[in-house]
């Protein structure tokens, strides 16, 4: 019981994020004319996927006490690479996908090397590598365009049932159990679950993964305990690159093209930091996790979804004014990140604030 309470208390930020998301999304689904349908869920999951991945990519370096300002550029780079590689024969597509993921992981690894061996502060190192990655993306795709396999695009952005109609899994038609239940699950949700359960959870339970938390909360102590802090850091940035690559790959599938859009890359980077904070990860490092960032990103997306559905003649009609939405989103973002200020009013000794 005590153990449960401890676990709950340590992840309070995460639970707040989950609660906020559930409330916001329930509100949105109730107000939306097509609410609580698979179609709407598929559409929203598609719109959220890239930001979720980029936010998870941001979360891992932040846990180590660093930051990665190149997550947006890495996503853009992989997006452009995918628009070159992911088409043609099935073999070429599989190789292309693997190459895209490897390119993202490599970009993250380079970040890690500069931070660990170059000993440059992460904020400025990733700022510079971000420029390099955007440059490579522009080199690959000077103007928006390219081609991504259409079947794969269709399958990745729809419910699981489309996988059967496209690739004919079941020669005799889908059995009832598939069509009724599993077939209704959106593919992006399956992909996110796969990334979380097959990559993030196993990683967090390794010595290297736990080392990331140790480095973030007390680097010196982690070093003195014999942890390989360099390897933990390196792994954190590499994993960040891999997650960003997943986001970029999905963006390519979703839009069917590549686009080296610099403002978009910047917006994704900044939103990822906000999502990480909303999801209960401290920017000082040592706490939180990628799952929190996932829900942080969902909260940000749910907020912007909500503004779409307010009835313009209703009592909250002024909220649906498109001109006012940016300021509402800004104020909510500012309030959300200021939630962390609650600790200021609880401290017993003001000196503990100066950390």
């Amino acid at each position, binding site marked *: 019981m005590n153990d449960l309470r401890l676990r709950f208390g340590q992840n309070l930020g995460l639970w707040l994020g989950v609660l906020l998301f559930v409330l916001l999304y329930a509100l949105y689904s109730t107000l939306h004319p097509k609410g609580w349908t698979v179609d709407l869920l598929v559409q929203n999951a598609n719109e959220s996927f890239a930001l979720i991945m980029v936010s998870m990519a941001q979360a891992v370096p932040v846990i180590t006490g660093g*930051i990665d300002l190149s997550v947006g550029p890495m996503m853009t780079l992989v997006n452009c690479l995918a628009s070159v590689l992911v088409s043609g024969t099935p073999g070429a597509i599989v190789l292309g996908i693997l190459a895209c993921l490897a390119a993202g992981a490599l970009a993250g690894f380079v970040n890690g090397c*500069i931070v660990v061996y*170059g*000993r*440059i*502060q992460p*904020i*400025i*190192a990733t*700022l*510079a*590598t*971000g*420029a*390099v990655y*955007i*440059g*490579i*993306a*522009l*080199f690959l795709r*000077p103007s928006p365009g390219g081609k991504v396999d259409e079947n794969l695009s269709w399958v990745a952005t729809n419910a699981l049932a489309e996988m059967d109609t496209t690739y004919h899994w079941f020669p005799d038609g889908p059995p009832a159990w598939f069509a009724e239940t599993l077939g209704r699950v959106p593919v992006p949700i399956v992909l996110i679950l796969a990334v979380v359960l097959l990559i993030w959870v196993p990683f967090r339970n390794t010595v290297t993964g736990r080392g990331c938390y140790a480095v973030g909360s007390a*680097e*010196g102590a982690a*070093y*003195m305990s014999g942890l390989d*802090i360099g390897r933990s850091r390196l792994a954190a940035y590499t994993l960040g690159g891999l997650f960003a690559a997943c986001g970029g790959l999905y963006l390519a599938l979703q839009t069917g093209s590549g686009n080296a859009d610099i*403002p978009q890359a*910047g917006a994704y980077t*900044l939103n990822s*930091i*906000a999502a990480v*904070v909303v999801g209960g990860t401290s*920017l*000082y490092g040592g706490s939180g996790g990628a799952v929190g960032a996932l829900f942080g990103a969902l909260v940000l997306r749910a907020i912007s979804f909500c503004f779409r559905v307010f009835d313009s003649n209703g009592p909250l009609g002024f909220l649906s004014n*498109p*001109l*006012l*939405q*940016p*300021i*509402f*989103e*800004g*104020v909510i*973002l*500012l309030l959300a*990140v*200021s939630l*962390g*200020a609650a*600790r*200021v009013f609880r401290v017993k000794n*003001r*000196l503990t*604030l*100066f950390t």
Partner: protein
Amino acid sequence: MKALAAIDRPMLIAGLCIVLILFAGTAYTVTTQGTATFIEPAYLLQQIKIAAFLGIVSAGMMVVILLGHIDLSIPWTIAASAMLATAVGGGWALPVGLGVGLAVGLVNGLGVAFLRVPSMIFTLGVNAVLRGLMVMLTGGFAPQSNATGLMVWLATGRPLGIANSVIVWALLSAALVFMLTRTPFGRYIYAVGNREAATYLSGINTRLVLIGSFIICDVCAALSGLLIAGYTSKAFQAMGDVYLLPAIAAVVVGGTNILGGQGRYLGTVIGTVLIVLLQSVLSVAQMPEAGRQIIYGAVIIAMLLAYGRGSAVRG
């Protein structure tokens, strides 16, 4: 003597790098066009004039970075200052623009000093709010966005032979150097950047230092916004976006520690000139955007590897 050399090394290397960029650029133009464009006084003066806008932003950013903080609300502070100033117009344009900077700085400072929200995320939120305010302002109707005569004169007039923007930059620089090196407030900024708890225990009101520094930073950004609007004779929405990252790069390349507490103002000036010259030479050499971004990032990494490395963890 050795300590002095360690502090001066970034500026020395950055200075050499500027010479190298000019040399490489000249070699390129001499071989392709037969002219030495980059070492002509007219060209250099033109570059200094353009550098003034970035230089003023970097100057403010440096004060905040010296504290160990950062200000990501720069882009929309620049835009908001210019847009509100041009919308008001007339004699009140400049006070309104600078007032925007003051207000933004105050909000940033209060958030960081009293709520203790990390500056990176708080100023990011303020940036989003400013953007929303400006969309609200310009969305329903189109306020006038033409720069007033005074703004144009400040940015491009040249009664003394050199552009007024350069003179504004020089005056601001002199004031900042005096503040950083000769006033208690300036020393407090370095002290907070080195160890805030120790500064607090020494009886200094660190909250006031934080608020004052953010106000300086955002007033500088607002001033730059007014000058940019004067230079392009218009205020527009995304005008500040291209200044944030170069400003941080200029400060860091100039040898200021991104963690705060260490850095000299001359370094920021050299860093600004380096960034502006690099961008200019690459565009004259008709380097495509892709190559420009890659070289830009690579130069920053290389310079930091040369002198910006932290110390290894040893228990």
